[in-house]
C-alpha cells in the first residue's frame, strides 16, 4: 500500500482514540468537579488540561476554570486547534484521504459519527447535556473500531489502524497516570487517605477500568495495585502492557507480510522489554514519574520508527 495512505490510516485511528480518551477524561473530571468543593474542582480541571497539554492555551483564553468553560474549550473551542471536534474532523479528513483503503462499513461509521458530532457540537455544550455528548464521542470511536475489526482484511491497512490506535492509547494512559500521580500526590504520605482513594478511583474511571479493577481486586483499592493494573496487566485493554502486546503483534504481522523486520521491530522489542521487564515495586522504587516520562519518550520513538520504516513520508 502507499506510504501516504499508511500514514493517513495510522493518524485517523490516533485521532479517534485521542478524541475518545479526551471524552473519558472530561467525564471523569466532571464527576470529580461536581462532587468536590470549588477549589478541588479547579484543581481537577487544571489536571485534566495538563494531561491534555492544553493548560497554557486555555489560560491564554480563559480566566476561570468553570466546568462549562473547560468542557467547551476542550470539546469545541474555536481557539483550540486540538479540540475534540478538530480531532474528529481530522480523523474524517484522513478517512476521506484513505477512502479506498477502508471498507464501506468503516467509512460509514466514521462519516455518520462525524455528521452527528458536528451537529452536537454546533452550539456550546450545556453541562446538562454533557453526558450525551461524551457518550456519543465514545460511541463513534467504538463503532469505528468494531467496524474495523469486523470488516477489514487483515492486511497492512488493518495493521496501521491497530498500530495507530495502540500507540495513542499507550500514550494517553501513561499521561493520565502521570499527571494524576505527579500533580495530585506530591507526597506518598497521602497514600491511603480518603482523597487519595477518590483520586485513584478517578484515574480508573478516566480509563474505563474501575469495574474491571474492582472485580479483579475484590474491592481493595491501593495505588500500587492500581498502577500495576494500568501498567502491567495484559488483560486490561487500556493498560500499557496490553497496548504494547497489540503493537508487537501488529509489527509481527507486518514483518510476515513484508518478509522482513526492520528498525521499528528492534526499537519495539527494546521498548517492550523496558515496560514489562520489572515489577511494580521496582517501578515505584526508581520513581513512577520518571518511569512514565521515559515510557512516553520511547513510545514516540516507536511511532517514529514505524513511520520511517514504512515510508509514511517521502
Amino acid at each position, binding site marked *: *500500500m*502507499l*506510504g*501516504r*495512505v*499508511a500514514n493517513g490510516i495510522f493518524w485517523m485511528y490516533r485521532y479517534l482514540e485521542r478524541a475518545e480518551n479526551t471524552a473519558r477524561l472530561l467525564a471523569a473530571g466532571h464527576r470529580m468537579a461536581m462532587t468536590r468543593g470549588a477549589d478541588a474542582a479547579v484543581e481537577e480541571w487544571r489536571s485534566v488540561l495538563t494531561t491534555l497539554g492544553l493548560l497554557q492555551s486555555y489560560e491564554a483564553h480563559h480566566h476561570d476554570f468553570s466546568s462549562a468553560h473547560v468542557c467547551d474549550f476542550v470539546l469545541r473551542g474555536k481557539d483550540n486547534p486540538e479540540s475534540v471536534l478538530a480531532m474528529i474532523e481530522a480523523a474524517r*479528513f484522513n478517512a*476521506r*484521504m484513505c*477512502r*479506498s483503503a477502508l471498507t*464501506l462499513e468503516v*467509512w*460509514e461509521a466514521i*462519516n*455518520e459519527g462525524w*455528521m452527528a458530532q458536528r451537529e452536537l457540537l454546533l452550539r456550546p455544550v450545556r453541562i446538562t447535556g454533557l453526558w450525551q455528548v461524551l457518550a456519543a464521542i465514545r460511541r463513534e470511536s467504538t463503532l469505528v473500531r468494531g467496524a474495523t475489526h469486523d470488516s477489514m482484511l487483515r492486511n*497492512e491497512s488493518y495493521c496501521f489502524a491497530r498500530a495507530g490506535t495502540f500507540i495513542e492509547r499507550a500514550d494517553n494512559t501513561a499521561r493520565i497516570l502521570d499527571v494524576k500521580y505527579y500533580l495530585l500526590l506530591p507526597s506518598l504520605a497521602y497514600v491511603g487517605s480518603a482523597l487519595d482513594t477518590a483520586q485513584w478511583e478517578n484515574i480508573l474511571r478516566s480509563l474505563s477500568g474501575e469495574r474491571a479493577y474492582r472485580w479483579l481486586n475484590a474491592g481493595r483499592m491501593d495505588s500500587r495495585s492500581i498502577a500495576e493494573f494500568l501498567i502491567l496487566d495484559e488483560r486490561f485493554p487500556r493498560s500499557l502492557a496490553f497496548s504494547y502486546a497489540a503493537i508487537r503483534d501488529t509489527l509481527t504481522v507486518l514483518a510476515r507480510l*513484508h518478509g522482513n523486520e526492520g528498525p521499528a521491530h528492534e526499537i519495539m522489542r527494546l521498548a517492550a522489554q523496558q515496560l514489562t521487564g520489572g515489577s511494580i515495586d521496582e517501578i515505584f522504587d526508581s520513581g513512577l514519574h520518571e518511569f512514565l516520562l521515559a515510557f512516553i519518550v520511547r513510545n514516540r520513538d516507536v511511532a517514529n520508527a514505524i513511520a520511517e520504516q*514504512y*515510508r509514511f513520508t*517521502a
Partner: protein
Amino acid sequence: MSGHGEVQFDEMHGPDGSVRPAYRDYAAWMAEQDARWLHRKSQEAEGFFRRTGITFNVYGEDDAEERLIPFDMVPRIITSSEWRRLSRGIEQRVRALNAFMHDLYHRQEIIRSGRLPERLFRNNPAWLPEMVGFTPPGGVYTHIVGIDLVRTGPDEFLVLEDNARTPSGVSYMLENRETMMAMFPELFARVKVQPVSNYPRRLAKSLAACAPAGTPDMPVVAVLTPGIYNSAYFEHAFLADQMGAELVEGSDLRVVDGRVQMRTTRGYRPIDVLYRRVDDEFLDPLTFKPDSLLGVPGIMDVYRAGGITIANAPGTGIGDDKAIYSFMPEIVEFYTGEKPQLPNVQTWRCADPDSLKYVLEHLSELVVKEVHGSGGYGMLIGPAASKRELAEFRAKLTASPSNYIAQPTLALSTVPVFAKAGLAPRHVDLRPFVLVSPEGIEVTPGGLTRVALKKGSLVVNSSQGGGTKDSWVLDD
C-alpha cells in the same frame, strides 16, 4: 426561462397525458404506491448520499463546503431499441474522435484535405506539440469518453458536447443506481433494467488492455487525483476503490529507473497504467506548468519512451473544444467514411464573419459558449440574459469572435421530477460513458442524466444547481 413557444417533448407523457411505452411499467408501479411513502423515500435518499459521502466540493466557495448533488428518484428511461441506435452512433463518434487524435498528432490528413482549418489547433492550448509523432500504447487516445446528448423529440437525439479530456460523473451513474435499488428493490423485480454495476470492472479491464507493450499479465493500474480538495475527489476515490487500484497523488510518485513509481510501504513500485484525473497542464512540471505540484516531474519522458500508459492521453482535450465540435460531422465522415448517425446541434462559428453577424443580430435567442470553456461557466443563455449581460457579451464577441460559438436555444426534452405537489416536468440531458481499448469500444447502457431542478431552466450542470437521475435502459 422557457423554450420559445415550441412544444417540449416530455419523455414520460405524451401531449394528451398518456404514458409513453418506455415508462409504462414504471408508471403502473408508481400508481400503486402511497404518495406519502414516496415523499418519505425521497427524503431518505438524501440521507443515504450523505452517509456514504457522495459529495462534491464547489470551487470558489470559502469553506470548500461538501455539497450533495440533488438526486431525483424518478428514473430516466430509454427503451432498448432507442439505446441500440444511440450506442451505435456514440461508438461511431468515439471511433472517429480517436482516429482524429491520431491524425492531428501525425500526418494531419484532415488539414491537408482542407476539411478542417489549421488555425483550430495551432495556438490552441489543448493541442500539445509534445505529442507530435508519438503513438500511445495500443493506439488509444481517448480511453474514457463522455458524450453529452440532448433530446428534442421522439427520435431526435443530438450531441451537445464531447468530453474527451477527463469526463466525470460516472460515480453518480453507479451510486444513483445503487440508491434506487436500495430504496425500491421491488421495482427492479418488476421492470428489467440493463445493469451498470460492472462499469468499474470493465474500466479496469479496458485500462489494463492499454498497458505498454511488454507489460506482464497483471498491469499495475493507479488513479491519479489532484487530492481531497478537488471537486470530483469522491469519484476518484470511488473508482480506485471499485477497481482495486491505488489512488495516488503527485507527491506519491517519482520517476525511478526510467519508470513512474509510487511510494509504497515497501519502497517504490512501478505503475503501468495511470488513469489520471489531473489536467494536461499539471501533469509534468518539467514539460508543462513548472509550478505544478499535482503531477510527476519527468512523466512525459517516461511516457514517450513507452514506460507508462496515461489515460486519457495528453492532448486529447482538443476534442472538447467547441470549435472542433462544430466540425464533428465532417470529422466523423472523414475517418469512418460514413454519415454521422448522431447529429450535432446546429452551431454558428463566430470566427466566420457571416455567422458572427447572425449571432449578434439574434443574441437574445441563442446560447453562446466559449470554445475552451467547460462546466457551464462563461456561457450566455440569450433568452435568460439581462440587457446588461447581453451588452457585455456583445462586446466580448466583437472583440474576439473566434473564442465563441453559438447554438439555438433548444427545446430540450423533459422528464418528470418528484416535487412536493407531485410529478413536474424538468429539462434533462444524458452523458453516456464510453470505454476504448485495443479490444474495442464499449458503451455502458445508460449514463448520467442531469436534470435542471428549476422549472423551465435549461442549465443542468451540477456546479450550477442541477441534479441527477438514475438512467435506465430497459432490457427486453
